[in-house]
């Protein structure tokens, strides 16, 4: 799922997410949350609550062990 915000786009590759919540815990803006929505393997995937607060810092992408979340800003992908 791709969420478009003012300064960035946050992409979650649902089929890779295993619902570990590392991104939720480490996002400095606290704008990610785990949903009840499950992927084909039954893992609860994450979504963005207030996308416009995203700074494009790339922390979510760095802590994700599944290569399942990344952000795109005008400067490129992280």
């Amino acid at each position, binding site marked *: 799922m791709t969420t478009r915000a003012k300064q960035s786009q946050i992409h979650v*590759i649902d089929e890779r997410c295993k619902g570990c919540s590392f991104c939720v815990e480490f996002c400095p803006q606290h704008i990610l949350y785990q949903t009840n929505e499950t992927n084909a393997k039954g893992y609860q995937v994450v979504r963005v609550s207030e996308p416009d607060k995203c700074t494009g810092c790339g*922390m979510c992408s760095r802590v994700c062990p599944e290569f399942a979340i990344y952000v795109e800003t005008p400067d490129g992908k992280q």
Partner: protein
Amino acid sequence: MKTTAIARIGAHPLDEYLRTDRLPHIWCPGCGLGMILGTVLRAIDKSRLDIDRTTIVSGIGCTGRAAGYVKLDSFHVTHGRALPFATGLKLANPNLKVVVFSGDGDLAAIGGNHLIHAARRNIDMTVICVNNFIYGMTGGQLGPTTPEMGRTTTSRKGNTEKPFNIPYLVGAAGATYVARWTTAHVRQMERTFIEALQKKGFSLVEVISPCPTYYGRMNEQATGLDQMRYYRYNSVVKHFANLADVDISLDGQIIVGKFIDIDRPYLPAPKGENGK
């Protein structure tokens, strides 16, 4: 908020370094291995290494599976032998950048002797030693890094053996670059990997990583997130700490940072030395 359909596979910034057809990988939810592998790939990318001359060598274990997920020349070798294999690779082809990515069991238990000798000989390579305090792949047995009183499937009442302090061990053997981070220090880890990749000589970075399935569950940190929180709130950065003091206890502080960064002659010797 506007949302669009599905984020495409192949679009993740690390996908160009990954065998995406093999994802999702086999590692458990909350395991730290994917994050450490991602950080190595980011460091390789940022260091602008020639990926045709960059190789990853892994031994056996959950950690060892890393070699199978990277789209580089990678080698998944027998248990404990990642370092001798990597040594041969480097000596035969000094132009290669050799990275070893393996577990504490592979590198410090069955491969322990190779570890001290690779450090002593100062072979020019970068070793990422993932320490989850346990043998993950074979069912959570105690290993040489299990903290005292740590519970494992083969130490139900708590481990009574003294664990290796890996930075102290390889430092004493002669490693020229030694650091330690946890998976809760992903940015510092990335910077350290970049430095270690540039280092001429034997560099080793120990990364403390969650294994919720075995170690965490048996030691009151049931999820990867519990283990991450523990690292986040119980780590102390002490660069160039006295290595005798950096051992890890079951519920104490984890000392992290860069511990050693020195220079001495390394193998293979640069061209022009040793009469070549």
